[in-house]
């Protein structure tokens, strides 16, 4: 199914270009290696360390690195250069993916059913259209038409929030359904060990990122690979948060990592006289229920509390949890929202549908002017790192505006506030010890939900946040019931326990997890920021108490 909106995506010619891409990556890495001896030493040191702890079937490689380490000192410059090239090429081939149009066409036919089936096994079994089910449960929002136009004018770099392992599947399906071109992305090498997943990823342009390899040469190859792909017009997907959000909140600080190569790619192509425009597309992926919420929040609390918090292991089996999640998501229409934000240029300026960069006053800006120095285009790693940092800030701004609040988030925040009212003097860890102790009458909780929703509605009117499907108009009690219904049965322990004419606040960690989604808009509780605090120019770290 090739959409009418786009011409054939660049990725369809990936295999024909692959050798060329690897060559370019190797040439570039070599040209920028000022000190081959240092790079080779560093590579040998880290690889020997890595391979010695888990040699597996890579014993031969280990031997090679040991040889390299021994003989490096005696080598002449020419030989070192040769070894560097060899290694760079080895890594580049390891990273480079594959794209098989046949597999892609096959996958786009079956993927909706696959994903749909995953999300709605009952309906699939009952013979209903699985695609129908997914269409109801996944809602896509945002300037999709503009993004499709921009895809014709330059390279798209998608940078969504990251909450769940479902994200890449949901995002891939969202692109396909909105007739946006497929995007290549770097996937952890561990994902390639699953043969079925590996088959698809390997043939759909994903490239392999081996997080166990930590030396500079590998990083250089990876960066060069990512840059070359963007320069050549391959739309790319990065999760700039790096890992799934532990707290359940939206990322408020980004390092961007490989996504930062978008700036370099744009400048390099312009220096060669054939500027390739690069458009960053922020997006939020929002779930009414998150599959991994418990594991993630435990991890986050452990990190927050350091020694104060002890993890208790209460995991249920993965398959069981997936199936319950699926069942639960089916209860609500629009339980997953993929929301695209306004596209940005690599310097954080907004981009119009015809590919023009504009500043906050709507004035047209030439993005390449930011790369000028004394009237000439130059590459400068220090400067570009700073631009990348600022782009990260703009993307976080977009996340904040485009966070979609659902009933579970709002009800959790209202309930958590009741917990805080009951123990106003306690800090976060103090609060979490009062499981099953606070009872809130249904009418009171419902009122709190209504008030919070109204405040969120005011923010939405100012473009500061987004309310999920139906959240804006539905009654507070309805929202409360929906959230309780969604939670009950899915999470291994009840979040709120219905008792008489009210609820007992039970799973406080999950309440915290879901309410954390509101922190970014200032509506949720944050230990660091204080409730309702607004940003007043800077990070909130720093000393407490008298000086």
């Amino acid at each position, binding site marked *: 199914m090739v959409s009418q909106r786009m011409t054939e995506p660049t990725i369809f010619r990936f295999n024909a270009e692959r050798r060329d891409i690897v060559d370019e990556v190797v040439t570039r890495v070599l040209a920028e290696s000022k000190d081959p001896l240092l790079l080779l030493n560093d590579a040998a040191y880290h690889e020997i360390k890595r391979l010695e702890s888990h040699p597996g079937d890579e014993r031969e490689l280990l031997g090679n690195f040991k040889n390299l380490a021994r003989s490096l000192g005696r080598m002449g410059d020419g030989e070192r250069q040769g070894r560097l090239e060899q290694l760079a090429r080895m890594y580049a081939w390891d990273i480079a993916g594959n794209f098989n149009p046949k597999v892609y066409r096959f996958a786009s036919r079956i993927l909706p059913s696959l994903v749909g089936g995953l999300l709605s096994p009952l309906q699939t079994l009952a013979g209903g259209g699985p695609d129908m089910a997914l269409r109801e449960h996944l809602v896509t929002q945002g300037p999709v038409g503009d993004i499709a136009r921009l895809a014709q004018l330059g390279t798209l770099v998608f940078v969504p929030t990251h909450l769940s392992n479902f994200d890449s599947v949901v995002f891939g399906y969202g692109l396909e359904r909105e007739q946006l071109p497929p995007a290549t992305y770097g996937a952890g090498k561990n994902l390639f060990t699953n043969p079925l997943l590996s088959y698809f990823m390997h043939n759909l342009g994903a490239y392999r990122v081996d997080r166990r390899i930590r030396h500079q040469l590998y990083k250089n190859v990876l960066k060069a690979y990512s840059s070359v792909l963007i320069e050549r017009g391959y739309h790319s997907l990065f999760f700039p948060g790096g890992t799934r959000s532990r707290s359940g909140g939206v990322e408020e600080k980004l390092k961007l990592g490989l996504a930062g190569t978008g700036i370099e790619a744009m400048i390099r192509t312009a220096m060669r006289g054939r500027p390739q425009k690069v458009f960053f597309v922020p997006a939020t992926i929002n779930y009414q229920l998150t599959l991994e919420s418990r594991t993630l929040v435990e991890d986050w609390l452990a990190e927050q509390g350091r020694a104060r918090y002890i993890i208790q292991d209460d995991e249920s089996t993965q398959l069981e949890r997936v199936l319950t999640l699926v069942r639960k998501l089916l209860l609500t229409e629009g339980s997953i929202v993929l929301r695209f934000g306004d596209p940005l240029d690599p*310097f954080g300026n907004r981009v119009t549908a015809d590919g023009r960069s504009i*500043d906050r*006053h709507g004035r047209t*800006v030439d993005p390449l*002017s930011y790369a000028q120095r004394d009237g000439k285009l130059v590459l400068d790693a220090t*400067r570009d790192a700073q631009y990348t940092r*600022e782009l990260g800030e703009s993307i976080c701004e977009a996340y904040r505006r485009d966070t979609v609040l659902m009933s579970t988030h709002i009800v959790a925040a209202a309930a958590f506030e009741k917990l805080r009212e009951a123990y106003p003097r306690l800090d976060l860890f103090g609060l979490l010890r009062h499981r099953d102790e606070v009872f809130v009458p249904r009418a009171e909780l419902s009122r709190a939900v209504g008030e919070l929703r109204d405040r969120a509605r005011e923010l939405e009117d100012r473009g500061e946040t987004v309310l999920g499907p139906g959240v804006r108009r539905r009654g507070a009690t309805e929202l409360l019931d929906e959230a309780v219904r969604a939670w009950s049965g899915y999470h291994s322990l009840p979040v709120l326990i219905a008792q008489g004419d009210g609820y007992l606040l039970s799973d406080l960690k999950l309440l915290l997890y879901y309410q954390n989604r509101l922190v970014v808009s200032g509506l949720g509780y944050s230990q660091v920021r204080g409730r309702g605090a607004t940003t007043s120019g800077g990070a909130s*770290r720093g*000393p407490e108490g*008298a000086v």
Partner: protein
Amino acid sequence: MSAITVGILGGGRWGYALGRAAVNAGNRAIVCTRRDGDPCPEGVEVTRDLHVLGARATLIVLAVPSTVARPVATALGEHVSGAHYIVHAVRGLSSEGLLPISTVVRQETPVKRVGALAGPVLASDLLEDRPSVLAVGSRYPEVLECTQRAFGSASLRVSVSDDLLGTEWASALVGALLVGVGYGRVAGVREPLLAGVMVRALREVCAVGVAAGAEERTFYGLAGIGDLMAAMAQNDARPEALFGERIARGEHIRAVREDMDVRLEPIELVPRVLAFAKARGITMPVFSALDAIMSGKATVEQITAQLMRP
């Protein structure tokens, strides 16, 4: 190295002094101003047209009071592109929240490469070519280099820092401390006590600056402690210190404000910094004392008694 053209927006004494420094460094300087009357130093061009500034200079210095920084930056935004660098010479933070002026510049213009000037340098020294020192903060290496090239000469050393936020916070907050220096001197506070109070004040300022995201080391550099040392030593005082002296003589604050034809950033800054610190659990006894002085709520005896408590 060939001469560059430095644009300066704001024709106060400070703006002209910077123009003079640029000429002294072998460059061309254009001051854009709508005011008449200030004497223009030799070699400095004057224009009324922002367009001229944008067309001829890559580096533009914004030398206007914080209160008008936003509208001036908005107007300048029409005449500059992403290839320009803008460095501001405002010793204050924006009156909306505690926004650094560099952020205001980035919001109002297409320019991303911004910086801030700071340090103890006096306009009179620049105008009379006496050796002095200037600090510049920016996260962009080319802004630091260009500023050095614009102003650095045998009689002006330009020291650079990549901590822009720290430079802006240190400059603004130490500026406020100078009011205390002037006040203490006239109120008869002896040097050892004044030094003790200022060391303590510097720690407060550091803590609040770090909470805002600045780096501590910047406060112990030219933009922070350097500024303070100069003010402690010199009689040819900065306007903030003069303001402190006059309050200590019992003059009415409003009258002094109207009489001194410069913008006194600390008057509005101090209460806002105190509120910011309070929200983060940082206590600032010296800043609180400054607030009391500037609002005429306390005598020197009361303040001394309060600050002497262990």
